[in-house]
């Protein structure tokens, strides 16, 4: 549950799904499954492109409004990455099961919470992308995402992958996602901040999500997600093609 440990992931863990992945980072563990392209139900059918259906399920309690909100955020982002035009009238179904969230030993949190929790978004997004890759769903590009918090004082003003206690103290919390073309795919912030602060956050997040391969490693702003994604996939592909 430490702040910036290296993420862990495993691909194609569910034998009966077209694609699946688990992703664990900063206290969050998410299991993701992808089925598709499959037949879309009447109401989801789109004549020119595939319907991307995202279902987010909390670890405990029934999904509520905030899960719907998370779903809509992810749906709009993933539809950008998937080549939806390749599968008209089809459905690509992504189920994201939250298995663990970082615990805060200093409060007894309520089970059902209406307010959305940003920090889970990166874990969900990463898991979804890994699962999509495992399902070999054709995609335009990949993406990576992270959380940054602006905390009042302390060693660093910017905190990557803050733990719940930091979040309580934070002035503002930001979730950013970048495509593999270094474009800003998603930006969600809340709290109290200035454009300048956001700029700094942007820099830090970009550093993590799309660090150029050649870089000195002494300034550890956090994990190198793009590299992580690539190595994870290379291992998987190499294993799949063991016979070559």
């Amino acid at each position: 549950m430490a702040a910036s440990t290296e993420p862990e992931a495993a691909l194609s863990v569910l034998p009966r799904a077209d694609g699946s992945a688990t992703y664990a980072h900063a206290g969050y563990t998410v299991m993701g499954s992808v089925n598709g392209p499959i037949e879309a139900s009447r109401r989801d059918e789109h004549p020119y492109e595939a319907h991307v259906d995202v279902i987010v399920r909390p670890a405990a309690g029934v999904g509520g409004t905030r899960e719907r909100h998370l779903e809509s955020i992810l749906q709009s982002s993933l539809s950008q990455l998937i080549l939806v035009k390749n599968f008209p009238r089809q459905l690509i179904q992504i189920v994201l099961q939250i298995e663990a969230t970082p615990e805060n030993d200093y409060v007894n949190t309520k089970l059902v919470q209406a307010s959305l929790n940003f920090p889970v978004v990166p874990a969900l997004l990463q898991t979804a992308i890994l699962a999509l890759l495992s399902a070999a769903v054709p995609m335009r590009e990949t993406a990576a995402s992270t959380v940054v918090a602006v905390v009042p004082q302390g060693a660093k003003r910017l905190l990557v992958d803050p733990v719940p206690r930091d979040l309580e103290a934070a002035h503002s919390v930001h979730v950013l996602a970048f495509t593999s073309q270094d474009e800003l795919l998603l930006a969600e912030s809340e709290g109290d901040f200035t454009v300048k602060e956001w700029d700094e956050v942007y820099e830090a997040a970009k550093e993590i999500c799309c660090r150029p391969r050649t870089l000195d490693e002494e300034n550890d702003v956090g994990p190198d997600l793009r590299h992580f994604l690539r190595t994870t996939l290379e291992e998987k592909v190499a294993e799949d093609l063991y016979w070559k």
Partner: protein
Amino acid sequence: MPREIEPSLNEKQFVLQALQEKFRLDGRQFDQYRPLELTFGDQYGVADVAFGKTKILAKASAEVTVPYADRPLDGVFAIATELSPMASPAFEVNRPTETEVLLSRLLEKTVRRSGALDTESLCLVAGQKCWSIRVDVHVLSHDGNLIDTACFAVVAALRHFRKPDTSVEGGILTVYTPAEREPVPLSWLHSPFCVTWSFYGDRGEIAVLDATWTEEQIRVASCTISLNRHGEICQISKLGGTPVEAVALLQCTSIALTKAKDFSVFLDKKLAEDTKKRNIGGFMAELRSENDR
């Protein structure tokens, strides 16, 4: 709504023929379970169970709430089994299928109505405040025999679970955070397990344990027997299907008892290992929380 396609005629015929020749597709004995795996999460009350390719995650959670008016001295205990499309695209969110209803009823009868959890111990302030214990069953992968797997996961999760410690002074309830006081286990009375038989043949003469999804689709009847290691039946349900000789059912029950005992031993072992593992970490944790104060 996408529907699960039935197995092909070839598969139906062959599986049956093989069973009549005493073979199963995966080479198992008729009364043999697939390899059983159980792993507990870092957090209390999380159990990840796998019977072969069937994977289920159960998570227990606790919350203070108001007791039901008609039973002011009891806590609230619920088992939620919502099957998501992760298990199979044939499951739609909040549209319960027969599979889902029967599963939740079986868990209800096996774990809740058999009094495995002492609900009176969940009462905090009579008629005002009590614990609401909830287990969420998440089917991650469905390759048959959801019932036995789910039941095992639920029992494992509940026995692993710790709820926040509380105190009541002068009618004022205090719920302590994990940092203030170590959480406490539930008061647990007995551990029931489900053992499900699948029947084949015109007279249901062939009986098989822990059927895979293919085998389940082809079976003509099934019977789930829930027992604990004390040899107490908590529930039996053979809900229709091809009739089976009464004597055969009695044999099934006695075999089921031995299986239940095996499960019980396995679970106790795993729990012991886990606590041993935690005590090391737990001690450090206490130190940490000390420093924090």
